[in-house]
């Protein structure tokens, strides 16, 4: 049968065939969901921006930095406990001195040579001791009390503090600010070190694309045990819905989601959904300097009128654990006997009447995210029952995080706040000292007793005594009634069933180098 085609038909046919050929190979468009594989893709919800330990922006940056660099000591897999990393030996020789000896033969990537004690000195001092005239490191506070680092040999040195510090290992030596950089590389690369880091850790950065991804490749010259995956791509996906779809389609292998975001993925074959308690902390705060909130009875009334469980049901689908004090159970000094306040409208009304407060109108400031919006609506309804009218003020991040600053903070009434934690009580407690009023102490709560306990705990090297000091500090917070503790949140981990992810408990500090594949 003769086929009669004109030029248009041929062109149209070719285009159609091409299009079908492009999209129709069916699931070829999707990534492989089966495993194990040698490379994986994980999702982060915040763009990675600065991989310089001194100038990092968020935990996501820190997680990459910790896997690219070695530290004298690092956390064991899935633990907050430290073990030796770049150091063969680390000894606290006195309350203010720590001696270290590096393992020889640890090579920096990109041909920057062997790690020496000079690199350790450089890395710690560039954060803790800004040289005169140079820019102060954002994370200078991590190395507070650092006097100097002495080099006593090619691989040996001594960290000297001006006064004892209890969290030196957890916050400085074993964390991001304790990452050992190549002095030569930093001097040579300048500002570029923020996107082209040079380390001696399990992975190296082979690609850094803003708004898109960072790709880590296994460091072939690593002296120690090799990580399981040859390559880890870290994709920035801000939208939880897109994350859900990318997990389903197999384009990403791991993500941390909110309880409500993770719930629909429980039924997806090949995915594992695991809730992990967080060490972030969320609370409703009250400004002690503002009008009627200056009266302790008004604050107590608000605390009694609120129902934490109802608020958590609205904000986190009831999946987040309730918090009754500042420190969550995983942290040293958790006050396990902290009072669990139950809603009592009658007592709340009586307290308000005793305070002579009627027809109160308060503003509740929140970040414009669904969890806070839902909790704020519940709080508004609950407080309305005792005669307090609440106006919910939902703000985007830039405006929200500046609201407690300087004199602007004097105008706050009520607010919902969330801070990230670390495995150290002083790190978490620091935002509530009197010096932080006008900065991060939005309650404007000034307690000389709390400040004293904070300082004592910061330098107390005995764990039990330190824990007791921290509990006493939390009792003072409770007495102030300026805080209604809500939750330390939950991070829901969603990943391919054949991946065994790892993180310091709380799932803020991910351990990419300890990620493994099931056989």
């Amino acid at each position, binding site marked *: 049968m003769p086929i009669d085609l004109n030029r248009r038909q041929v062109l149209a046919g070719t285009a159609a065939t091409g299009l079908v050929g492009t999209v129709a190979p069916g699931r070829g468009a999707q990534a492989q969901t089966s495993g194990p594989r040698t490379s994986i893709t994980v999702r982060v919800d915040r763009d990675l921006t600065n991989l310089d330990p001194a100038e990092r922006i968020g935990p996501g940056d820190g997680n990459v930095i910790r896997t690219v660099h070695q530290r004298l000591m690092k956390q064991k897999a899935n633990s907050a406990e430290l073990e030796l990393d770049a150091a063969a030996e680390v000894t606290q020789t006195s309350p203010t001195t720590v001696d270290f000896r590096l393992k020889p033969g640890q090579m920096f990537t990109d041909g920057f040579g062997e790690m020496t004690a000079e690199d350790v000195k450089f890395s710690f001092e560039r954060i803790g001791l800004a040289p005169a005239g140079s820019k102060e490191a954002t994370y200078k506070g991590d190395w507070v009390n650092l006097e100097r680092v002495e080099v006593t040999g090619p691989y040996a040195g001594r960290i000297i503090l001006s006064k004892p510090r209890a969290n030196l290992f957890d916050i400085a030596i074993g964390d991001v600010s304790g990452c050992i950089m190549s002095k030569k590389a930093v001097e040579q690369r300048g500002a570029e070190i923020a996107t082209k880091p040079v380390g001696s850790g399990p992975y190296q950065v082979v690609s850094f694309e803003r708004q*898109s991804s960072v790709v880590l490749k296994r460091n072939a010259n690593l002296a120690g045990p090799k990580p399981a995956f040859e390559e880890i791509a870290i994709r920035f996906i801000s939208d939880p819905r897109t994350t859900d779809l990318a997990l389903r389609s197999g384009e990403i292998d791991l993500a941390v989601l909110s309880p409500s975001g993770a719930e629909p993925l429980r039924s997806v074959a090949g995915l594992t959904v695991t809730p992990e308690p967080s060490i972030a902390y969320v609370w409703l705060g009250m400004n002690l300097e503002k009008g009627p909130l200056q009266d302790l009875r008004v604050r107590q009334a608000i605390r009694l009128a609120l129902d934490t469980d109802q608020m958590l049901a609205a904000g986190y689908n009831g999946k987040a654990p309730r918090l009754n004090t500042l420190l969550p159970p995983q942290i040293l000094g958790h006050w396990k006997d902290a009072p669990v306040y139950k809603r009592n409208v009658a007592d709340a009304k009586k307290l308000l009447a005793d305070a002579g407060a009627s027809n109160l109108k308060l503003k509740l400031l929140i970040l414009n995210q669904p969890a806070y919006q839902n909790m704020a609506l519940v709080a508004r309804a609950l407080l309305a029952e005792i005669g307090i009218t609440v106006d919910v003020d939902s703000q985007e991040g*830039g*405006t929200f995080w500046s609201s407690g600053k300087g004199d602007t903070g004097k105008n706050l009434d009520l607010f919902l706040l969330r801070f990230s934690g670390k495995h150290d009580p002083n790190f978490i407690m620091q935002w509530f000292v009197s010096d932080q009023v006008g900065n991060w102490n939005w309650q404007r709560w000034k307690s000389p007793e709390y400040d004293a306990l904070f300082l004592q705990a910061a330098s107390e090297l005995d764990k039990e005594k330190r824990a007791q000091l921290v509990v006493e500090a939390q009792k003072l917070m409770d007495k102030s009634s300026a805080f209604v503790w809500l939750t330390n949140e939950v991070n829901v981990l969603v990943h391919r069933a054949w991946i065994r992810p790892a993180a310091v408990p709380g799932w803020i500090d991910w351990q990419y180098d300890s990620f493994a594949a099931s056989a």
Partner: protein
Amino acid sequence: MPAARIMNSETARYLASRLVTTVLIVFGAMLLLFTLTTLVPGDPAATLLGPQATPELARRFVHDMGLDQPLHVRLWRFFAAVLAGNLGVDIISGRSVVSIIAAVMPYTLILTFSAIGLAVATGLPLGIYAATHRGSVMDNVLAFVSVAFIAVPSFVIAIFLLLIFAIWLGWLPVLGTSRSGAFLDEFKRMILPTVALAAGWIGFIARLVRASMLEVMGEPYIRTARAYGLSERIVTYKYALKNACIPTLAILGLGIGRLLGGAVLVEIVFARPGIGRLLYDAIAERNYPVVQGTVLVTVILFVLVNLLVDLSYSAIDPRIRREAISSAKAA
């Protein structure tokens, strides 16, 4: 004076006046932006440095960004730096703003032009068909579909496209970029974002072309062309369509300008880098050097695209050419 020379001098004069307008628009936009940055709540030091920042560090940060300077000084410094080819430094990564914009610009340009290209390639024939089959069932169906496309926001279309083509059918990927760099893979990843962005414009162009075509088809010169016995195909495509395209071209100029910085929601849904998303994030972070650089580049591109559109009118319509020549002669 020969017509060509009159035309050239007139074009040069026109270009010069548009260039002056461009400079004024850019200056006005930047003045507005700098004024807004002084009015908008939110302390960049607090937002970016976070709790770790000491007051001294925050003060230095504000000084380094020049935020402690009066508005006119900041504006003057900015334009002086721009003339030297320097848009400043990203306060988060320490990289130059030029390099950051250059890194995301190709994503934006590709998405913008592919979306507009698809919108024209689809909307134009649909509009012509609707105009030439006025009142038919298909005309009514196209009207309904076009309005639906215009009314539904692009990010909603994006989510539906993802559900259908990435999840149910599994034909196309969810993420709008890959790290493979392979052409075919990148092409596949472009399809859904392009369709999501183009959908509204397809409907818009279809409606606009239909209305313009109907108006032009009633013009006396079309009747004359028909009276000369020209075929309906030639009348429609050679004489009517050309003039009907002029309003569409004007809208396309605006459309390209809008998409250059306004595709942010589609970029977020497809996790795709782009200038709109860069600007959105920079505003949230109060990262002013990136905000200023991005707005400047977007404004310049917007004005240039619209200048090209204006120039293209005279290429399409000889009456506009003649008007230019007459006004030049009169001058």
